[in-house]
C-alpha cells in the first residue's frame, strides 16, 4: 500500500476501497446477474450486441427515447419555477415561517404509492374536482393529467424539492462578504441575484436540476400511473414484468437508461468545470437576510402560498380521501368518517416503526457513503476515483424490480449466521436496497456542499498540525453540514415510500414497511380509504422526522456560529 499511495492517502484509499466493494456487491453484481440477458442472443444464448441493434432500429423505442428526454427536460424547467421562489425568499429575507415552508416544501417527495396517484386523479384528473368545477362554471376542462404534459406536471410537483433542498443549502453557504462587496460596488436587486448570488449557488442548483432530470428520465411510477407507455422506463418495466414472456429488450433498455443517466451526470459536471465556487467564510449564517417592506411581504407570501398550495394539493387530496366515505365523480367526498383510521390503527405502528428504521438507517448510510465519495473524488488523487461517483449514480437508473430480482438471485443461497436465514429474506437486505437506491440523492447533495468549501480551510488546519482524519472530522464535515442534511432529508423522505424493490424483498409480514402496507390495501375497492389513512400517517411521521432533523442542524449551526466567531477572533 505504502508504495502506491502517499501517506496521507491511505485512509481515503481504504474508505474508497470499502465503498467500491459495497457498490460491487450490492449494485454491480446483482445488476449484472439480471441484465446479462441484454448481451445474449435470445435464441442461442451466445454473447452478442444484436439486441442493441434491435433497440436502435425499433421506432417505438426511438419515440420513447425522445418522449423521455422531452419530459425530463421540461420537468427541470417547471420544477425550477416552483423551487426558485421558495428557496430564494426563505434564505434571503427575514421571513416568518421559513423553516415551516422549507419542511412543507419537502413533503411532496413523500408521495405514498398508489394512494398519491388516486388522490391526484380525484383532484386533477379528467373528471377530478378541478375539472368538474371548471366544467360547471365555465364549460371547459383542462387535461392536467393527460399525455406527456400530464407526466411533466406530476413529475415536477413530485420532484421539485430536489432543487429546493439543494439550492437552499447552497444559498445558505454563500459567503456574506461576496454579497457585501458587490453591494459596495453598486449592485443591487435582480442584478445582484443574477450576477453574484445565483452563480455562487450554482453547485446546489446543478445538483438539484441534474437529480430532477435523471430521476424523471428514469422514473416509471408516474408514467405508469398516468398509463403512458411510450417512454423508456415504463417500456423497460412492462417488458420485464409481463407474465411468461422473456423479452431481452427490457434489460437492454435498462442498460441504455444507466448509460444515458451517466452521460447526463457527466454533462452536468462539465457545466461546473473550470469555475471555483468555494468561499472562505463559513458558518456565519450565509447570506444577509433583508427585511421586507409590507407590500413586498404580501407579494412574497402570496407567491409562496400559491406554490405550496399547488405542490401540496396531492396531500390535501390524500387527506380528504382518508376521511371521506365514498368519493366518486364528485368535487368532494360524499361524507366524512374516521373509520379508515380505526381500521389501520392496530397495524400502523408496526409499519411506521419499520419504515422509520429502514429509511433512517438507509439515509444515514447514504450520507456517510456520500460524504466519503465526495471527499475522495474532489480532494484526493486516487486513481479511478470518478468511477465511484458514476457507479453510485448509476443506481438511479436501475429499476427497483431489477435490484429486487438481482438480490434474490445473488443472495438467497447465502445464509446469515446469527439470524439463521437467507440474506435475501433478512430485513437488513431491505435497508441495503434502500441505501443503494437512494444513494445518488445524498451523493449529489454532499458533492455540491463540498464544492462550496474552500480547500484553503483544510490546508490551514493541516498547517496548524491537524491530521487528515481530524481535518475531515472537525473542519470538512461541519462545513458540509447543510448539504449533508439536505442529502439525509431527500434520501430519508424518498426511501420511506419506496415500493418496487421492497415488494420483491419483503419475506415476512412483520418486516414490511409502510409502502407495502399501502400496497396491500390498494388491491381492493374497500381498501382505498384505509390505504389513504395509512398514507397520511406515514406522511405525518416522515414529515415530523424531517422537521426534527432540520431543528437539530439549525441548533448545531448556531453553536457552530459562535465557535466560528471565537475562532475568527483568535485568528485575528
Amino acid at each position: 500500500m505504502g508504495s502506491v499511495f502517499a501517506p496521507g492517502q491511505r485512509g481515503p484509499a481504504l474508505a474508497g476501497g470499502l465503498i467500491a466493494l459495497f457498490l460491487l456487491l450490492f449494485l454491480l453484481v446483482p445488476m449484472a446477474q439480471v441484465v446479462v440477458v441484454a448481451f445474449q442472443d435470445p435464441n442461442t444464448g451466445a454473447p452478442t450486441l444484436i439486441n442493441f441493434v434491435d433497440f436502435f432500429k425499433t421506432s417505438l423505442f426511438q419515440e420513447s427515447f425522445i418522449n423521455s428526454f422531452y419530459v425530463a427536460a421540461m420537468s427541470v424547467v417547471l420544477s425550477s419555477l416552483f423551487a426558485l421562489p421558495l428557496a430564494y425568499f426563505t434564505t434571503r429575507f427575514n421571513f416568518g415561517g421559513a423553516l415551516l415552508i422549507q419542511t412543507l416544501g419537502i413533503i411532496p417527495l413523500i408521495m405514498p404509492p398508489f394512494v398519491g396517484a388516486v388522490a391526484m386523479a380525484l383532484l386533477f384528473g379528467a373528471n377530478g374536482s378541478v375539472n368538474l368545477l371548471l366544467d360547471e362554471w365555465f364549460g371547459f376542462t383542462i387535461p392536467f393529467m393527460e399525455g406527456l404534459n400530464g407526466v411533466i406536471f406530476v413529475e415536477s410537483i413530485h420532484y421539485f424539492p430536489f432543487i429546493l433542498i439543494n439550492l437552499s443549502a447552497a444559498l445558505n453557504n454563500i459567503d456574506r462578504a461576496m454579497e457585501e462587496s458587490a453591494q459596495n460596488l453598486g449592485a443591487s436587486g435582480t442584478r445582484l441575484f443574477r450576477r453574484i448570488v445565483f452563480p455562487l449557488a450554482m453547485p446546489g442548483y446543478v445538483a438539484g436540476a441534474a437529480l430532477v432530470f435523471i430521476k424523471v428520465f428514469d422514473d416509471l411510477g408516474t408514467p405508469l400511473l398516468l398509463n403512458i407507455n411510450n417512454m423508456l422506463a415504463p417500456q423497460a418495466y412492462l417488458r420485464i414484468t409481463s407474465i411468461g414472456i422473456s423479452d431481452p429488450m427490457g434489460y437492454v433498455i435498462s442498460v441504455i437508461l444507466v448509460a444515458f443517466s451517466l452521460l447526463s451526470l457527466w454533462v452536468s459536471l462539465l457545466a461546473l468545470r473550470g469555475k471555483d465556487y468555494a468561499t472562505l467564510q463559513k458558518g456565519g449564517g450565509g447570506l444577509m437576510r433583508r427585511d421586507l417592506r409590507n407590500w413586498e411581504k404580501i407579494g412574497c407570501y402570496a407567491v409562496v402560498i400559491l406554490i405550496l398550495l399547488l405542490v401540496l394539493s396531492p396531500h390535501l387530496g390524500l387527506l380528504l380521501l382518508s376521511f371521506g366515505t365514498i368519493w366518486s365523480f364528485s368535487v368532494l367526498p360524499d361524507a366524512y368518517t374516521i373509520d379508515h383510521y380505526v381500521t389501520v390503527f392496530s397495524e400502523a405502528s408496526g409499519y411506521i416503526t419499520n419504515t422509520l428504521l429502514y429509511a433512517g438507517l438507509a439515509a444515514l448510510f447514504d450520507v456517510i457513503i456520500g460524504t466519503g465519495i465526495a471527499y475522495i473524488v474532489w480532494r484526493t488523487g486516487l486513481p479511478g476515483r470518478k468511477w465511484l461517483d458514476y457507479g453510485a449514480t448509476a443506481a438511479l437508473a436501475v429499476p427497483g424490480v431489477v435490484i429486487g430480482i438481482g438480490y434474490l438471485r445473488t443472495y438467497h443461497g447465502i445464509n446469515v449466521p446469527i439470524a439463521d436465514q437467507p440474506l435475501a429474506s433478512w430485513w437488513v437486505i431491505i435497508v441495503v436496497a434502500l441505501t443503494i437506491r437512494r444513494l445518488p440523492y445524498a451523493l449529489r447533495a454532499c458533492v455540491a456542499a463540498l464544492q462550496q468549501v474552500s480547500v484553503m480551510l483544510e490546508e490551514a488546519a493541516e498547517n496548524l498540525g491537524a491530521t487528515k482524519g481530524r481535518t475531515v472530522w472537525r473542519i470538512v464535515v461541519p462545513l458540509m453540514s447543510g448539504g449533508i442534511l439536505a442529502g439525509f432529508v431527500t434520501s430519508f423522505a424518498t426511501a420511506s415510500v419506496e415500493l418496487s424493490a421492497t415488494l420483491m424483498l419483503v419475506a415476512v409480514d412483520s418486516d414490511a414497511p409502510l409502502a407495502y402496507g399501502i400496497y396491500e390495501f390498494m388491491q381492493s375497492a374497500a381498501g382505498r380509504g384505509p390505504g389513504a389513512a395509512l398514507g397520511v400517517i406515514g406522511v405525518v411521521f416522515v414529515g415530523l422526522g424531517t422537521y426534527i432533523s432540520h431543528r437539530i442542524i439549525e441548533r448545531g449551526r448556531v453553536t457552530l456560529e459562535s465557535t466560528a466567531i471565537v475562532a475568527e477572533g483568535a485568528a485575528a
Partner: protein
Amino acid sequence: MKHVLFGTVVAIGLALASFQVQAVEGTLTIVTSYPKDTTGTFKAAFEKKYPNVKVEMLKKKTTAGIKYLQETAGSNTSDMFWASAPDAFEVLKGDDLLVKYQLKVKGIPEKVGAFPINDPDGYYKGFAASGYGIMWNTRYLKAKKLPTPAEWSDLKKPVYHGHVGMSAPSRSGTTHLTVETLLQGKGWEKGWAEWKAIAGNFKTVTERSFGVPDGVNSGQFGVGIVIDFFGLSSKASGFPVDYRYPTVTTLVPANIALVKNGPNPEAAGAFIEFLLSGEGQELLLDPKIRRLPVNPATYAKAPAGFPNPFKDSSIGSAVKFDLALSKSRYNVINSLFDVMITYRLDDLRDTTKAIQDAEAAMAGKSNDKAATLIAQAKALVNQVPVDAATASKQEFNAVFKKKRKKATTKVEGRQAEIEQDWDTMVKGNYAKAKSLAEKAKSML
C-alpha cells in the same frame, strides 16, 4: 437414505394429520396476490380452527410472486402460491416449482361453465370462479348521458368514445382470458376486429388489472372491462357502480397450489382442504371478497341476486373455451395486443374517431364512393399482421419464450425484430385509414 427417511416422516405426518386435525402446527407461508380483505379473513378463520398454525401471507403482485418463487427455489421458504390467473400456475408448473396434491374434500364438480375447475395434471386446484364482464359508474353515465352497456358489442358504439378502460393481456392473466374468449367466440379475424373497435373507444389501457375498477370507482372513465369480483366488491363497498356479465364470457377458476419443497406440507394441505370446505367456501360470499364459490351447495347461503353459474346457464357457457388453443398462442396474443392497441392507442383512437365521424355524416345519405372509402379504412384498421394458423405454430411462439420445450425447435427471428415489423404495418395502416375516413367525410 436421508430422502427415504424424510419421505417416511412426511408420510407418517400426513397420515397423522388426516386423523387428528389438531396435530397440524408450524408457520405456513403463502405467497399471494390477494388483497388484505381476502387474506385477512381466511387467515383469521384458519388460525382459529388450527390454533397451532401461524399463517404468514406474503403479498406480491402475481408477476412478482412468480419471480420470487423462481429465484428462491434453491432454498425455498414458501409453502403455497395463491392467485387468480391459471396461466401464472402454468408458468410455475412448467418450471417444476409445484407439487401435486390429492384433494380429500368432496362435493366440488369437475367444471364451472365450460372450464375445468382443477388442473387436469393435478398440480393446482380451483377454489373460486370468476368471469369477465362490464362495470360502469352510474354517476358518470348519468352526467355524460350515456346508456348502460350490456354486451361487448355495445362498447363499439361511438357514444362510448373515450369512456372505456381496460388492462392489457400481457399485464393481467385474467384480461388475457377475456381477450382469448372473444377471439375464440368470434374467430381470429372478426375477434380482433371487435377488440380494435372497442379499443378505439378506450380512454386508457391500465398497467395493472386493479387500475380498471379504480378508474371506474373514482370516475376517471365511465365503463371498465373487469373481472366480476372487482365489480361486485366495488359495489358492495358503496361505490356508485354496477356490473353485469355479457353473453360471451368465460368463467375461470382462481387457484391455489403447493410449492415444491415447501417447509410445511401438512399445514398447506390443511389450508387447501379448509379453503374448499363448506366453511371456507362460505367466506367467499363476504361483501368485501365477493367471489363465486366452486361448491354449488354454498350458493344456498348467498344473498339474493348473487350470480350462480351452476344454476344460471347463461353465465360463462356461450363459448366452449379451448384450453389447448389458448395455450398454443398465449405469448403471441399478448404481444399482438400490445403492438396493435396498447402502444398505439393514440393512433387507433384518432383513426376510430375519424371513421365514426365519417359514418355519422353518412347516416341517411347514399354515397357509394364515400361508403367504399369507409369500408377500406375499416379493413385497414382490422388487418392483423399474422393469421390464426401462424399464431399457433410452435416455432413462431418459441420466439417469445426464453425456455423452449425442445432443443430441436427451430427459432427464426427475434421478438424485437418481429414487433418492429408489426408496428410499421399497424402504424402505417392506422394513418392511411384515418386519411381515407377524413376524405370520405369531406365528400359528404
